[in-house]
């Protein structure tokens, strides 16, 4: 009986606090708009209309959210293990590079579905190995994983620029160096009846799998234990090194898949447009979602919606182009700050009488133990 009540209050807490935070963010943004000379209520109206209002505009949000879901997992998964990985951009770039390499190598020698699967696997493997490398450095050499994964981003981007400017360059791409284009039949299509590419479905599936893996399996339990207290996990006999490598590989493979989707569904070849910040956007999404893969879906939709509304803010309200970044920044600041509010409201707390044992034997000194 009692655990039900507690779960209900906890769920309410973890829903109301982020929503409240977003509302406060909107309020602050309204003040900003008023100062910038726009009517805040009209601005709210256009944000709603251009992000979620109509099916056509909601697709815009979905298109922008798709890569963020996959890239967010690259930060969210290792975070459960206590690692702060920010190498999303690098893993995404490596995934895109590997996918195009495989796609071009096979060409039209195999049926398109096979080529697409091969490209997906190649992208996942490349991204996975990239982040697993950061995990290995952490485990075997005690290199700070945040710094190493950040630096790996620069290496990946440099490698991308080198390859598309040199060995992989299509000589006909004169003024924007690119690889040779993928064969049109090997491109990923759109979900029937929409203009949203399949990356959205991959993102949703990956987030759900990640959630189940972390929350509902012994493997996930082991990872969370190691994330909670690494020494306790070692004493309990958990293979911490193995866990680190596997989780990092899975995390990187999600970002790698995002890179594959970007080249196989959008760009058609690999060039500098692969490196436009989906990785960094994913970090924000992961933190705002408190590293919960299901929450990451909704956060990705929120960010996608914010980005989708950027155009109408500029066009109908004459606000500067950086407004959308201000909006995004405000929402994230407030969401991150709201993290410190958990447990502060007595309403969401489990009632003490539910925890207290029914009939404690009256002896001095016992009370204080109960309270703790």
């Amino acid at each position: 009986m009692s655990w039900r009540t507690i779960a209900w209050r906890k769920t309410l807490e973890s829903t109301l606090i982020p929503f409240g935070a977003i509302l406060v963010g909107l309020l602050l943004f309204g003040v900003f708009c008023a100062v910038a000379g726009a009517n805040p209520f009209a601005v709210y109206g256009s944000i709603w209309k251009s992000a979620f209002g109509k099916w056509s505009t909601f697709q815009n949000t979905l298109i922008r959210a798709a890569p963020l879901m996959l890239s967010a997992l690259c930060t969210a998964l290792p975070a459960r293990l206590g690692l702060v990985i920010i190498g999303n951009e690098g893993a995404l770039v490596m995934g895109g590079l590997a996918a195009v390499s495989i796609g071009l190598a096979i060409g039209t020698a195999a049926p398109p579905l096979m080529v697409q699967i091969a490209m997906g696997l190649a992208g996942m493997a490349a991204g996975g190995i990239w982040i697993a490398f950061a995990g290995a450095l952490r485990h075997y050499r005690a290199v700070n994983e945040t710094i190493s994964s950040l630096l790996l981003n620069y290496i990946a981007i440099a490698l991308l620029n080198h390859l598309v400017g040199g060995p992989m360059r299509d000589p006909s791409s004169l003024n924007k160096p690119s690889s040779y284009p993928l064969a049109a039949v090997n491109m990923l299509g759109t979900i029937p009846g929409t203009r949203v590419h399949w990356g959205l479905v991959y993102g949703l599936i990956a987030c759900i799998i990640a959630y189940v893996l972390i929350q509902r399996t012994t493997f996930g339990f082991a990872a969370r234990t190691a994330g909670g207290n690494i020494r306790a996990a070692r004493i309990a006999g958990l293979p911490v090194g193995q866990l680190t490598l596997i989780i990092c590989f899975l995390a990187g493979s999600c970002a790698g898949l995002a890179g594959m989707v970007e080249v196989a569904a959008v760009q058609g070849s690999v060039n500098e447009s692969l490196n436009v910040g989906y990785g960094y956007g994913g970090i924000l999404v992961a933190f705002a979602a408190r590293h919960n893969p299901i929450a990451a879906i909704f956060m990705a939709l929120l960010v996608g919606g914010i980005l989708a509304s950027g155009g109408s803010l500029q066009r109908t309200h004459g606000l500067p182009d950086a407004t959308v970044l201000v909006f995004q920044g405000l929402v994230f600041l407030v969401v991150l700050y709201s993290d410190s509010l958990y447990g502060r409201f007595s309403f969401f707390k489990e009632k003490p009488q539910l925890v207290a044992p029914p009939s404690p034997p009256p002896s001095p000194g016992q009370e204080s133990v109960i309270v703790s």
Partner: protein
Amino acid sequence: MRLHLSRRQVIRGLLATTAFGATVKLGTGCAASSSDTVATDDQPITLGFIYVGPKDDYGYNQAHAEGAAQIESKFSWVKLSEEANVPETTAVAESMRSMIDSDGAQVLFPTSFGYFDPHILKLATEYPEVQFFHCGGLYQEGVHPKNVGSYYGYIDEAQYVAGIVAGLTSKTGKLGFIAAKPIPQVLRNINSYTLGARSVKPSTTTQVIFTGNWAEPIKEAEATNSMVDQGIDVVTCHVDSPKVVMETAEKRSIFCTGYHANQSALAPKGYLTGAEWDWANLYAQIAEDVKAGKTLTEGGIPHLLRGGLKDGFCKVSDYGLAVSSEAKQAADEAKAKLMDGRLVIYKGEIKDNTGAVVVAANEELKQLDPKLESMNYLVEGVLGSVGS
């Protein structure tokens, strides 16, 4: 309670409403048609402009935004729909779609080079009635949709003139060029600048540094500083926003020549002149053509629009305070010759900086020559290399 109506009443009522409806319809019909004939002169035409960076970057995007703003103030019937900071991803496809669907844009100018393939091509097939003009000169007859056009200017003519001013102003004979990538468009500017400088002072050299990307403010500042330390006393650049280069040059008290837009406000002492885009002429021309009912699809507007100083696609900034009268005279003379076609920049014999002949002795490569479009060398006098 029931309502009792005789058949006669019902018929009368129906007749009355029909008549009322008909007259009202007729009335509005008349009003609409008459206002149509009145309004043809200032029926607004919505033009959509998309920029890859901010509109006030003192560079590539500002040049386009200034052109757009000028036609908006020139023609009362032009309505602008503008979006800045749009990356070359699905974001630009969504922006174009929204401009067409929500703002009713009939003509789009997605200005960044990377918007073309696949984004513009995809949207152009989806919206065949909308005209797409892309800056970069990539259109190929028969390959790309009919409602797509390309425009680009030979701004290297203006760079040649700026090179003359730089060459005659430099005391050390060493010029600096900070460039993003070794691609044909950029190489052509570096080469024309150097050829201009060496046409008046053959011993001049141009040190080139490639930063690797279009917006690398830190590397651009470092490159400028290291050039000053090497004794270079005039710098210019080909990056998206020349702001940092110009400001650093001014801070280090050397001269600079601008690119893309007018940067004299950033370097009031050292700004000599610059190669600027002048899109207002072209944009006004296109807007008037569209207004007159011409389209790309029907061939009323050519698919490839190109031009240099003569056609008003680009211009040379007003000379700064430090420019001598001798330099002004030499630059104006070259400008006049370029405009009437007496001067061809790529006229043999030209060697590259490894000693190989790239333009033969009696060869003349005019601006339209496709050989210039795939330039992959640096001319003699340029210090640096193309290989990455």
